[in-house]
């Protein structure tokens, strides 16, 4: 009996619960958060675009350099072969 009374009393303890207001600065914080995100997203787009451009440029430069090296090596190997085969003695 006493136990039932206790349980019911606890279960009904929030019956007259009143709504609570958050801090007054909450809206300002939300607004700053939203505007911050908008700014960041624009900056992020530029950073990503710049990074991609640099990456592409580096790739092209590396590819061109590798091709040049390979061409030089082929010429050098050909010249060496000619030197060997055209011996005078």
């Amino acid at each position, binding site marked *: 009996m006493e136990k039932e009374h*206790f349980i019911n009393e606890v*279960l009904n*303890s*929030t019956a007259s619960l*009143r709504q*609570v207001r958050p*801090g007054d600065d*909450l809206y300002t914080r939300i607004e700053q958060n939203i505007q911050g995100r908008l700014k960041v997203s624009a900056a992020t787009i530029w950073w990503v675009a710049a990074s991609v451009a640099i990456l592409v440029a580096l790739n092209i430069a590396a590819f061109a350099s590798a091709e040049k090296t390979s061409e030089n090596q082929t010429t050098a190997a050909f010249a060496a072969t000619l030197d060997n085969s055209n011996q005078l003695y």
Partner: protein
Amino acid sequence: MQFHLNDFRTIYDQYILMVYNLALNYLQNAEDAEEVAQDVFVQVYQSLHKFRNDATLKTWIYRITINKSLDFIKHRNSKKRFFIFGKRADPETALGKIANFEHPGVLMENRENAELLFSAINQLPENQKTAFLLAKLEGLSNPEIAVVMEVSISSVESLVFRAKTNLREKLGIKFEHYRKKK
């Protein structure tokens, strides 16, 4: 496409009390509830253009608040586990902050009982806790809860019934401790 901040202010004014109080009942900490309310409204601002009218704005915001609160609890619990593991601390100490929650909206004479009730609510499974909070503290009807939780009305009835049974059981145990102390 984002909408104007003036429209957003109207939505904020209309729903802030609902969002903040639901988050407060879930998280049982005023600072955490403000953090979740902030996340909820940022998401509302960013996703309002995707909002379809197959649910009311209120239901949609309720859903966002519940999801954000549950995510926050999961994140908090994982941090707590790490903290407990790292520092070899007593889990009871880490849980103390939430266990002794004094709801600022509860009448002074009910504070002690409400504290007991909130600590028992915290031990309920996630969906029972949601159904109970929406029914008991938010005052929503079963059909409204069914829409928010996206389950059938009979499931809501069952969840609320099981939540109440579990709470009675847990409070019964608390009563025994309470009597032994006296």
